[in-house]
């Protein structure tokens, strides 16, 4: 449940370098996560640890290998001040929860973080910080367990219907 703290503009090349994109197994990808950026991550990250970052986490390439690499390392939640668009969607789609928290900089590296999605806050260092809820329609995908499960449940899409923003 410890935090792995990163700064602003952590791009998907940093999360998983281009030379490993031939692989799709989350465990294999996890063994190269943050390679050269933070080498202890792949060795020491444990199930349930969280990533805590600044602005624009996951910017750059659309590679879904990035959220998969984090999921493969046991990460279930990423807490950041803001996310890049494609990463945010990819994370939701593969069942990794991206939480926007304006106070993410107040959480220290290695700190124990408790996440309470239902009530919309995270706790670290004796402090409670609120997190923004996932946008309306995406909550259905989260509730389904990811976009694959969501897609399996619907026989067809209703074109041009307005979804809850």
């Amino acid at each position, binding site marked *: 449940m410890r935090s792995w703290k990163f700064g602003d503009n952590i791009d998907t090349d940093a999360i998983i370098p*281009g030379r490993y994109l031939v692989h799709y197994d989350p465990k294999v990808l996890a063994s190269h996560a943050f390679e050269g950026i933070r080498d202890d991550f792949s060795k020491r990250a444990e199930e349930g640890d969280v990533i805590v970052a600044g602005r624009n986490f996951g910017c750059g390439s659309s590679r879904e290998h990035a959220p998969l690499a984090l999921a493969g390392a046991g990460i279930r939640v990423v807490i950041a001040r803001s996310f890049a668009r494609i990463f945010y969607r990819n994370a939701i789609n593969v069942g990794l929860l991206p939480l926007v928290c304006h106070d993410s900089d107040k959480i220290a590296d290695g700190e124990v973080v408790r996440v309470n999605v239902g009530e919309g806050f995270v706790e670290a260092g004796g402090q409670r910080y609120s997190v923004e809820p996932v946008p309306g329609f995406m909550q259905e995908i989260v509730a389904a367990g990811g976009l694959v499960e969501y897609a399996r449940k619907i026989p067809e899409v209703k074109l041009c219907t307005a979804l809850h923003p």
Partner: protein
Amino acid sequence: MLLIYIMGMTLVEKIFSRKCGREVQAGEVVMASVDAAMIHDITGPLAVQKFREMGGKSVFDRNRVILLFDHQIPADSIPAAENHVFLRRFAAEQKIHNDDIREGICHQVVMEKGKAGPGEIVVGADSHTCMYGASGAFATGIGSTDMGFVLKFGALYFRVPDTIRLTVKGLFPERVGAKDLILAIASDIGADGATYHALEFTGDTMARMEMAGRMTCCNMAVEMGAKVGIVPPDEVTWDYLKPRRKIDPFPLSSDKDALFAGERSYDVSNLAPQVATPHNVDQGVDVTKVAGTKVDQVFIGSCTNGRFEDLKEAAEVLGDRAFSDRVRVIVIPASRREYLKALQAGLIERFVSAGALVEAPCCGPCMGGAFGLLAPGEVSLSTSNRNFRGRQGSTDASVYLCSPATAAASALFGEITDPREV
């Protein structure tokens, strides 16, 4: 389809409104059908896997799926070769046309085959899909699972973005162009300054700009977090599309009273060549600030700057001279068609004579996967779109981004050089 808009709409709102036959405003989330979907060798296999996990049996429309290999070609490893085989089998099974390794970089190929056009919605499993906005399409990059959904349903949910309008005025000085402009804009807006927005390019500079330059600008919209970079279709657009597909021109632009989330203007008449310094795209400076920086590798190519116009500009700066033997120069045309144009114009002979390595059309060193990787401590100067730490190899290497003119000038001397002075 006749739609009467109650209030002014942006170009992007109009695209979604045309699609849905009703007024759609920024901020709405809609399930919209797509006109084309592109997958390549890196993100394609996972998209196909997700398509199958979703219960997909046959793709929504085999003629609307664009499939080719460009990131790791010819296969640079056995896993890459296996991915290619996997996608070839999928193409055969679904009767999807597969350009395989033959055509070049996905984004260039989509554009030159006329697969994206004004008013259309196009998605690609690659972040630089936003480049097709140069054709007046709403085009955006998506992940593999989203693409699996698209392959099955032919539709995807979109949050219709607000638009930031960029008005560009003035004539470019000698040896300054679209890449310098977009690097300057990225520095101004910042790496996340346009997150979830559309960037609409207008103004007399854009009106004069050829499609090649517009593609360069739209390509890098994602480097500011934008969903798409888009240029309202005009004569240049329709002239580009005419020989490529059957399409009748129609008016499509933002209304005068459209609501923009932001407006910025730029004057290029005094713009200096720009160089993005390590390790972020928004760290651009005038070339004079970094002139003299030693470089080990110069890469001229990519979906950002691998077109004939880019190669021509580089060749003009090069002239009859030879590249410095202190630097490795790699030139890669963006596509087979651009390669042929460059060959026929004698540009390839010029580059090879000058000491460059000319590779067959592909992404090359841009994504640090296939070849041309950097060792710790090395410096690359690249006409591509990203200079993230580790992007082109070692995380202890540095990547600078620039225009083809600056790349060619710097390759002459083995150090970053102002193209106006050579």
